[in-house]
């Protein structure tokens, strides 16, 4: 049996949960979904539309606000009771926060951020990127069940969920959360001041990565952006270094964009960056390393020194 952990906040289902349900349905016949929180009957009803054996509801006032201690305590009880073969979650920030601890409590390790799975000699292997996306690995889970796996967001299509002919059964699963178990005291989530730059609306983007080498080299990228009529953006390390403000960051912790044209300068293409831009219509990559993962998603590539190519690119644009 595959147990899918759905994610909700304040009674709103995180739609990425549908991707996880779809992935589970493609892996096995017997799927159950568990959702934990407080006042989550509506979410459970929504999830029951999927063709699954059961929706398990873990309702507890101490789970009203997410805390890793609370969720590990509650979900470890559910996993012990239900004895699934596989526990499947979406690789969200919340999963990254509690699922390793949940697996560790049961003496397992989470196989994280998987992009798919395949059967080989009767064993399901999980496929995940490694070394910043330079390689992919087929992973064999070892040791006793349950195994724990998280799926990369976008790895499975949410609209491929199989719906049931009738709503799935909903069952309340009682859990105990002893006093003193939850040590984190969370404040309400908040948003920082509105983003100054909305890159999602940009038709053309020139993005720079580590290959730009230093803040003093940014003008070359700015000049190219100007020649193309593009917005300037960057991968996370550039913003981490303070060379460009955080609101110009593309990737899983920044903005997700799908412009007509995306020019990646000196960006190796770590998976965290690719998820933010691979939806662009035309991707041009200029990089000194022909094996850089950015070339896996790019339409046009030039392998070479960006400090030689970009000035020539600007000249060619101006001659056009």
């Amino acid at each position, binding site marked *: 049996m595959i147990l899918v952990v759905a994610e909700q906040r304040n009674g709103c289902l995180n739609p990425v949960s549908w991707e996880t349900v779809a992935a589970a349905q493609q892996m096995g016949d017997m799927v159950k979904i568990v959702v934990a929180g407080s006042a989550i009957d509506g979410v459970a009803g929504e999830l029951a539309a999927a063709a699954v054996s059961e929706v398990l509801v873990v309702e507890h006032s101490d789970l009203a606000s997410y805390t890793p201690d609370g969720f590990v305590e509650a979900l470890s009880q559910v996993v012990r009771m239900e004895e699934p073969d596989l526990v499947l979650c979406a690789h969200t920030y919340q999963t990254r926060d509690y699922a390793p601890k949940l697996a560790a409590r049961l003496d397992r390790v989470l196989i994280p951020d998987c992009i798919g799975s395949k059967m080989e000699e009767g064993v399901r292997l999980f496929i995940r990127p490694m070394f910043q996306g330079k390689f992919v690995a087929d992973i064999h889970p*070892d040791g006793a069940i349950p195994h724990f796996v998280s799926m990369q967001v976008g790895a499975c299509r949410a609209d491929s969920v199989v719906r049931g002919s009738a709503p799935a059964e909903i069952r309340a699963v009682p859990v105990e959360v002893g006093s003193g178990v939850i040590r984190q005291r969370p404040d309400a989530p908040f948003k920082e001041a509105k983003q100054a730059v909305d890159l999602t609306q940009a038709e053309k983007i020139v993005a720079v990565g580590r290959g730009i080498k230093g803040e003093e080299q940014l003008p070359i990228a700015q000049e190219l952006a100007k020649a193309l009529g593009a917005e300037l953006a960057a991968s996370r390390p550039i913003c981490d270094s303070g060379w460009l403000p955080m609101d110009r960051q593309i990737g899983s912790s920044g903005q997700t964009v799908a412009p007509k044209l995306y020019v990646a300068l000196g960006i190796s293409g770590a998976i965290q960056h690719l998820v933010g831009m691979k939806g662009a219509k035309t991707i041009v990559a200029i990089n000194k390393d022909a*094996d850089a993962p950015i070339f896996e*998603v790019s339409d046009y590539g030039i392998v070479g020194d960006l400090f030689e190519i970009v000035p020539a*690119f600007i000249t*060619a644009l101006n001659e056009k």
Partner: protein
Amino acid sequence: MNIAVCVKQVVTRDWPLRVNESAEWVRDYDASFEMNEPDAYALEEALRLKEQHGGEVVVCVAGPPRVTQVIREALARGADRAIHVKHEQLAFADANVVASSLAIAMLPEQFDLVLTGLQSDDQGFGQTGVILAERLGLPHATIVMEVDAGGVNGIRVKRELEGGWFQWVSMPTPALLTIQSGINQLRYATLKGIMAAKRKEVRSVEPEELQPAGQHIVRLYVPEKEKATRFIEGSPEAASRALVRLLCEEARVL
């Protein structure tokens, strides 16, 4: 405030990595290594907290003998002493094995805070810190953007959530935090720091056996391309002119 910071040694970012003969790991016997960059931010945060609140910073590294390079570097940047959990297989162990071996070496110590980076640049489990919290019996918070350790009842941290959301979380100490990259600006070792590092204590812990792995790599390979990239060759000038023509005539985006 006594702070432990866990650091991993990984293959240098620019190293032209290849899969090894058995295709189960990378060819790293001749590679150059460096401090995992997310861990460098955790180390920097630990040094800043020590500067504000006093105490000591202890760098904890699990890995084969070669990881003494990053231990020296952390000591040169300002850590006071180090713990090296030494075992050949820690070079490619999973996060549970690494965290469990670190925990055994760290349990006898009295740390107020344990910091780790968010994830490693090699296997990228992103779990060592969280599992370590479980093994040490500590509360934890992940993806931490700001640490306020000035209060009397534990600490307050700002966590990054998805989609531009943030959250402040309070918890008692001792606690474990995984630090988001970019939380601070990194410092580099000074000549004085490098000299001082030579006299600092490194406690070596050599476990005879490691915890059994919870998973293993069947094969490692270069990912299939999602798109057929058209590589444009020639001099920078010729390639650029060809690129502009293709963007105009074929892709029609100019």
